[in-house]
């Protein structure tokens, strides 16, 4: 029964980006796999205006997918939690606050069963909100306007057109080889 005791942890980080950028990253549940520590797969099953159903799989327990119900309030709050009535309770709540133009503060509260952090080392990082916030900081930095200026020798971007590479003034579309 000890594994069912909920554990809650909270941390805050300041980001050099608009709240909308942080919100876009956090409400894009399908791309959690790109940046969130120890996440092996993530996908969105269905999405409506302020509600989505997503699936997430952790490295610590491959092949076990957590189904999450996600609620998002534009640029302020993103909440993802496991479905009620299931054995493992898991919750991530992100609060986003604009602190200055081009800057925001994100507070993450994670809740999970006690053994996530104590007994199974693979989940320990998930239960450390600061590690997740640092990963978020790296991710949002790729959207921010703090890039060095000057003559661009080489640049790789990811957008609507897919992965693009600019080299010696010419733009190339990048395709996976395998």
């Amino acid at each position, binding site marked *: 029964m000890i594994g069912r005791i909920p554990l809650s942890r909270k941390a805050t980080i300041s980001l050099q980006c608009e709240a909308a950028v942080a919100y876009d990253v956090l409400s894009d549940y399908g791309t959690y796999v790109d940046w969130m520590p120890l996440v092996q797969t993530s996908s969105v099953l269905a999405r*409506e205006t302020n509600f989505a159903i997503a699936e997430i799989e952790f490295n610590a327990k491959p092949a076990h997918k957590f189904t999450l119900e996600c609620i998002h309030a534009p640029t302020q709050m993103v909440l993802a939690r496991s479905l009620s009535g299931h054995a493992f309770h898991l919750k991530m709540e992100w609060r986003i606050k604009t602190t200055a133009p081009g800057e925001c503060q994100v507070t993450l509260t994670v809740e999970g069963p006690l053994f996530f952090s104590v007994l199974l080392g693979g989940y320990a990082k998930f239960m450390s909100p600061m590690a997740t916030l640092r990963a978020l900081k790296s991710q949002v930095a*790729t959207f921010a306007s703090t890039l060095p200026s000057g003559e*661009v020798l080489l*640049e790789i971007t990811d957008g609507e057109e897919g992965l693009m590479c600019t080299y010696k003034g010419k733009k190339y579309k990048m395709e996976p080889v395998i």
Partner: protein
Amino acid sequence: MVKVVNQIDSVRSVVFGVLTDFDKYPSWVPGCEKVIVTSRNENVTNLDITLNSMKKLTLSLKFECEPDVLIKFEMTAAADVKAYFGSYRLMNSEGNNGTVLVTELELDAGPMAPKFMVDRILKKSLDESGKALQKYAKTRPAPAPDAAAEPEPAVVSKKPKRSRCLLRVVKTDSGEEQVWYGGKTFAVR
């Protein structure tokens, strides 16, 4: 409250049609023995249902339907159950024409049945019902083209992807080369 998500490989209108065709429940809902519809108007249906899983139960239920989106149900009378209510929420599946069905169900069977045990049985029962629905919905005809063309509410158009930079190498005005990666700038020496 137990909540379960099922992915059904049929369009939303078909799934909604199956879930609101109450007379047919005994042919696909596991443990459903009998359904008698007692009254029906546009979006509200009252019925008596006999379920036989952990125990035989006869419930009078009221269903309220919002076409293709939501079905709410609640108990209006029952002998052995204190509370029974829930909902089916239908969402378009991402990336295909299927449906994601979110089922919520609360059952209060009284002090003799511990809640954790009831919830475990309910979850298993809802998982089985989801599989049965998936199978049964496939036997139903696809909607007529004009019905399929009706606008479906609460569907979100995909947001344009925000462009991001993964790597940048620049030559600054002072002639120094800099590499930007992961939010950090490194000078090339």
